[in-house]
């Protein structure tokens, strides 16, 4: 079975609860008092983060997602990670997904590096055997050496990133979802991280990458989706769309 993602008229619209609608008390007062208090401004306001998205992502595709702040990129990634179900329309995802949207989930600053690797792997759903198998290669990859048994909060930002990066990238997903390029650290580590990322991207069947970097998307992605105010503004061949986007 080939992995694929099919969005059919999918929308994501958030109810914005002002203090009034969040509260049960006001609900009851409203239903008791009826028309007296119910004005239009009591209605729940919805914000459409994504509107009627139609797209078919096939196996083997490398998708770049671009757009300004608030254009719906993150929501789109979350939709494809099954975190949001579309409020209207449908989404059909085949294949197992790994989303590297926030690689710090599950990290406890007071625990040591080694404990954190374990915690994070547990969070990602690995069982004990897999964790025991993975932990040494991961420690080796981080190059933290003797620091690995010190608490996470003693690490420099770069070291913290290395640990989070290494722990999150020992995966073999069919569908890989990424928010910005992860590779960070000093020059040596960056090269190594780059290689690692490229290798999981190569192994994955579908990549969805949101980024602001033209070069990165040009290098990695074959197809680009340009989101604007929750709508697909343009979509298609990377070079063409990127040119339109960056020359607007």
């Amino acid at each position, binding site marked *: 079975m080939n992995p694929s993602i099919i969005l059919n008229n999918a929308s994501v619209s*958030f*109810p914005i*609860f002002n203090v009034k609608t*969040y*509260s*049960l*008390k006001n*609900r009851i007062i409203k239903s008791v008092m009826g028309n007296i208090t119910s004005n239009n401004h009591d209605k729940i306001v919805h914000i459409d983060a994504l509107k009627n998205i139609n797209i078919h992502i096939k196996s083997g595709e490398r998708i770049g997602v671009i757009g300004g702040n608030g254009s719906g990129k993150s929501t789109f990634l*979350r939709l494809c*990670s*099954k*975190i*949001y*179900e579309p*409020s209207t329309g449908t989404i059909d995802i085949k294949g197992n*997904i790994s*989303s590297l*949207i*926030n690689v710090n*989930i*599950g990290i*406890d600053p*007071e*625990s040591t590096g080694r404990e954190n690797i*374990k*915690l994070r792997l*547990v*969070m*990602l*759903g690995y*069982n*004990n055997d897999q964790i025991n198998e993975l932990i040494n290669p991961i420690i080796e990859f981080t190059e933290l050496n003797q620091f690995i048994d010190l608490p996470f909060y003693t690490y420099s930002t770069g070291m913290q990133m290395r640990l989070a990066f290494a722990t999150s990238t020992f995966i073999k997903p069919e569908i890989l979802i990424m928010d910005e390029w992860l590779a960070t650290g000093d020059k040596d580590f960056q090269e190594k991280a780059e290689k690692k990322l490229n290798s999981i991207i190569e192994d994955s069947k579908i990549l969805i990458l949101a980024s602001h970097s033209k070069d990165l998307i040009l290098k990695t992605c074959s197809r680009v989706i340009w989101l604007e105010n929750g709508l697909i503004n343009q979509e298609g061949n990377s070079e063409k769309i990127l040119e339109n986007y960056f020359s607007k």
Partner: protein
Amino acid sequence: MFKDILETFSKANQFLVFGFQDIKVRYRRSPIGAFWITINMAISIIVLSFVFGVLFNTPIKDYIPYLSLGLILWNFISTNINESCTLFINAKENILNLKMNYSFYILRALWRNIIIFAHNILIIPIVFLVFNKQLTITALYFIPGFILLLLNLTWMMFLTAIICTRFRDVSQIVLNIVQILFYLTPILWIEKSFKNSFFNEVFSFNPFYHLFSITRSTLLGQMPTNNNWIASIVLLIIGSIITSLFFTRFKHKIAYWL
């Protein structure tokens, strides 16, 4: 809902590890660590048994074991329910960034509180020794009783967590109800005080009265009545069905409400 819970159980190491981790985080850098839980509970028991033992004029030998078990169990129940109000809200970052089953958060909290309960229950053997009270064979009924309690707590927590995520001020209502139930459940006072009064009718509508009968009373050597068991099972079935309908209807909305 049942599918969600089964899936969480298939990766049981997740909620077990993180429930344990929560305790570790809470009591880190403290030399006696999680045994603060035990100490705090012991102090409440001593103070309360002194005050209420005198007030109710009950023989201390029976009253203290009764009160200790009651308080420890109630602490377990009320913490679970009170915490469930903010479970999804506090896990916002997690829910919005990593797809996991919602029951993970419920079972993690439940497990965390079971660990705390295990610390508190250490007081009981000491109390029993001091007052020369013996466990009888009816104590075996504690096992099915406690399991029934856990199952009932699971749906209660699930339901509270969903509703409180949508309506934030329901948390306050829940805290109130839990507080009121503390007084309406025979924990501080003894059931016998109200014998042959209409209060006995009132108790039978308090689910926690039955849940206490199938747990605490067994350890004190009292056999739960058939009604206690039936009430607990009926509560479980009805509660689970309602929660399950709720969950099926709203599970896709929870992420939107955060």
